[in-house]
């Protein structure tokens, strides 16, 4: 009940003006538009790299809004109020991760077919791309939440966050792009299984690290 209230509030905040949903989608659209301009209009080139690029753009777009995940609540005093409530910090972390995924991961998943179309991703890659974004974004939310909880008290926390989170997300990018590649080359490579396992482990384990980070920054 408390979890649902918190998830509902966060999704509502994200969807209001200036919220992170629109920001993530706009960032994703802008960067997907820039890639063809950057690598040139040669037809064959684009669709060969489309899957990997879209995957990466979705990861970056989800990451972009992460520094807001706890920072906004920390700055206006809401985090203290959430902490002085019925939820343990671990459940608080799970709720925040779920809310972040609903507010950014899910919309990115919904918009990625459009990106695939724009990037000339062949039809057989589309399902794989959706699968890859769907499996990758929960891991981005979960691993990113660790970074967000740790950088709360840092000056310029928003800049340091990608620096500490991106190397940790290497497996997500590799396996995510691997899913698309396997579909396009018509060879099974197990990437979906690896990414699914990684995402599951990240979502299950990261709340403990997030709670530890919150505890440190609330009580130091």
């Amino acid at each position: 009940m408390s979890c649902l209230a918190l998830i509902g509030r966060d999704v509502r905040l994200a969807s209001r003006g200036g919220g992170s949903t629109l920001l993530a989608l706009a960032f994703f659209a802008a960067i997907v538009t820039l890639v063809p301009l950057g690598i040139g209009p040669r037809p064959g080139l684009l669709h060969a790299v489309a899957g990997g690029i879209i995957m990466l753009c979705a990861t970056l777009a989800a990451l972009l809004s992460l520094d807001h995940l706890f920072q906004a609540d920390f700055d206006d005093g809401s985090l203290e109020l959430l902490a002085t409530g019925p939820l343990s910090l671990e459940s608080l972390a799970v709720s925040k991760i779920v809310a972040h995924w609903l507010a950014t991961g899910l919309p990115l998943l919904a918009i990625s077919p459009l990106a695939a179309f724009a990037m000339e991703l062949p039809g057989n890659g589309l399902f794989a791309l959706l699968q890859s974004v769907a499996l990758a974004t929960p891991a981005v939310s979960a691993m990113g939440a660790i970074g967000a909880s740790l950088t709360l008290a840092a000056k310029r926390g928003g800049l340091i966050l990608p620096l500490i989170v991106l190397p940790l997300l290497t497996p997500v990018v590799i396996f995510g792009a691997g899913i698309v590649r396997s579909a396009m080359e018509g060879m099974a490579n197990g990437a979906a299984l690896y990414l699914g396992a990684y995402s599951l482990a990240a979502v299950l384990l990261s709340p403990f690290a997030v709670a530890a980070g919150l505890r440190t920054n609330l009580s130091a």
Partner: protein
Amino acid sequence: MSLIAELLVKSLPLVRGGRVLQRDISFSVSAGEILSIRGPNGVGKTSLLRAIAGLLAIPDDCIIFRLHPNGIAAHPEERRANVGWLGHLDGVKRQLSLRENLQFHYRYNRGSGGVREALAAFGLGHLQELPAQYLSYGQRRRLAFARLLVDARWLWLLDEPMSAIDSTGKECIRRHIQEHCGKGGMVVAAVHEPLGVETASLELE
């Protein structure tokens, strides 16, 4: 939330940023009592409130809540779940309307007070659909206080509850503090000016 029979603080040291502010604070507050904590800036009034709320790391067992009818809450996580917190920051979400702000806390805390009544009590009833970003600072503080009425916690920890509040607002806060304690709640407040309704006060130096 459990009814708290007594708040016990014994031999509590306070440290901030590696500096010792207080070596040994001891006091107790029983149900129905209102304690005001006073002292010059920088003596650790806010730190003391944060310590009670479980928001500051302190040595084990320096702060204990005796619950009614029996049991204790000593661990910071248990204490956090049992306090009504009003800090320096008001914790108001600017993008949400006043009603949405309180409604969230009502649901999150499985509260018992009425959202409409709480807003009306602080003279904010006619603004309930307004996004909180349009409120003045004083109005936001009133909204923050109104939140305590829907949260339904027995121990209120108030940090400068009267700051930026006008005289009718102050009167309203006094009345609600007394009402809360009349029902068996307790209040610990860090203040510069006397609250006017306290039953005890603690001077830090």
